[in-house]
């Protein structure tokens, strides 16, 4: 397997300007992330709000300026590429937004929206009906406006627009969270089919662990701008090692019995706790977790990385 997308030490720091009332400070939205998405793979990025998963996605797509670290796409370093040099690459890396209603220009018809990327890159417009058919929409939808479509239909239009450029990478930022559950399942089916048919790679961002487990073969769990656990999704979500991953899994309301309750709330990224960022909420925290720097993400077993002082390689053998 070759890497389609790779990040090394990727970081995004937002500086707040000094004002009359407040000193200048900085917030590390993403704090040194190493990530690898193989060609044809599906990597899930999970975590709670403010953990930096959406920022990370936008960094990888070069939609926000990188503070530190490197990004390579198709084996080429794209960290410092100018926007004009990036434009041809954009064809092969596309983004699907969370809220399809906001991701479509309300004044454009479906045809105009899906045709836009084709026009920009000077491609053949005759494929529009075919693209619509591929996402399961009838051709008569071409002349509708977004407000005439249901949420699921709008998300299909967004997917068609992304597919128009024949991408290799699709970054999906909570693609089903704005949808009803019966429609969510339809869209997940569509995404699974597209991946198989077109050999797409997915970076799938979601707070819904069950959805990630359905879609992704690997998963990275983020907390406060860092990846705290990464591995095959069946292993990470089936037998979690990091205390945060465990808390997250235990909190998911099940159709069966009630879950265990984790204490505390995600801390403010502007004032992260010292030591391990999770220690104030961690039931297992020891003295060494409370001081020093955050624990590093280490390989504890083949293909399994965890950032926790208390998880040793010997635990998983």
């Amino acid at each position, binding site marked *: 397997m070759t890497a389609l997308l790779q990040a090394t030490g990727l970081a995004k720091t937002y500086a707040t300007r000094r004002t009359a009332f407040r000193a200048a400070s900085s917030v590390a939205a993403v704090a040194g992330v190493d990530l690898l998405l193989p060609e044809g793979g599906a990597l899930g990025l999970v975590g709670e709000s403010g953990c930096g998963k959406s920022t990370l996605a936008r960094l990888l797509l070069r939609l926000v300026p990188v503070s530190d670290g490197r990004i390579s796409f198709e084996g080429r370093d794209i960290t410092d590429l100018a926007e004009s040099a990036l434009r041809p690459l954009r*064809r092969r890396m596309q983004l699907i937004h969370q809220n399809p209603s906001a991701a479509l220009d309300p004044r454009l018809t479906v045809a105009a929206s899906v045709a836009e990327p084709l026009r920009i890159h000077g491609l053949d417009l005759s494929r529009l009906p075919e693209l619509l058919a591929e996402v399961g929409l009838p051709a008569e939808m071409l002349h509708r406006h977004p407000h005439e479509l249901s949420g699921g239909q709008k998300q299909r239009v967004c997917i068609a627009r992304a597919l128009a450029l024949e991408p290799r990478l699709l970054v999906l930022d909570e693609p089903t969270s704005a949808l009803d559950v019966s429609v969510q399942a339809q869209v997940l089916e569509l995404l699974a089919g597209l991946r198989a048919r077109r050999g797409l790679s997915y970076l799938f961002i979601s707070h819904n662990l069950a959805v990630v487990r359905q879609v992704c073969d690997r998963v990275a769990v983020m907390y406060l701008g860092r990846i705290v656990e990464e591995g095959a999704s069946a292993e990470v979500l089936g037998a979690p090692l990091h205390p945060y991953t465990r808390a997250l899994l235990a909190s998911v309301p099940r159709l069966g019995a009630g879950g265990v309750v984790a204490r505390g709330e995600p801390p403010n990224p502007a004032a992260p706790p010292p030591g391990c960022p999770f220690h104030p909420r961690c039931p297992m925290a020891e003295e060494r977790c409370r001081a020093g720097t955050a624990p590093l993400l280490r390989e504890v077993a083949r293909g399994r990385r965890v950032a926790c002082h208390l998880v040793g390689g010997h635990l998983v053998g």
Partner: protein
Amino acid sequence: MILPRRLRLAIFLLTRSFASMLGIVLVTVILGLALLGPVIVPYPDHVAGGIDLANKLQSPSAAHWFGTDEVGHDILTRVIIGARLSLLVGIGITLAAAAIGVPLGILAGLVGGPVREAIMRLTDLFLSVPGLVLAIALVAALGPGIVNAMIALILVWWPGYVRLADSKALSIRAEPYIEAARVAGAPTFRILWRHVLPNSLSPLIVKMSMDVGQAILAVASLGFLGLGAKPPTPEWGAMISIARGYLPEWWWYAVYPGAFIYAAVLGFNLLGDGLRDILDPRSHRG
């Protein structure tokens, strides 16, 4: 015939409101008078020149509905012809100001950074001086006259459009569909032209409608001060300026041009309110 839903909804929203209907009626009447003016006025040769001192300062009558002025001109004729001038000037000022202000504002909002900083500080500079005072100073420098009055008012007016277009562009810039266009590889100019501008138009159109009324008022003010159109040009403000000397005895001389200024400003303001109702996406569910 089945009209598209948007149009039916627009008609429904307009007809529901008395104020909007009044605005439409006033604006339509004034537009109609301006367009048909030379054809319908009873005394076409009274527009400029042609003194008829025998009939000076006649009170309103069947022959002269609005009476006559100090040189015997029919006031109705001059007020109708004045509508042409006022509308032309009002619309001209507004369009020119928007043509300068909107692109600057959208550019500022979309690009941000030092470009925005420069544009907005320049705008602040203009906005910090009271509009009419600045216009008076400009006309004093350029010399009185209707064209110079227009130039002065355009220079006073454009910063308002920068402000509005900038704030609109700032909010639209954060919309996911702008990010979607960037991901598709769209260059900045295309995003500006195809997405930001069309989606910013609604509040700009509302502001422009209201500004036409305000510009008519401002031109009349300059005319009144003797800095705009010069007599005997039939301009409402200039007419009132002279009529002031004939108050209160020859009241009709001032009242009718004044009433037309009032009706024009009110009409465009009410129309602007009505347009806001139609163009506001929140009223689309209606």
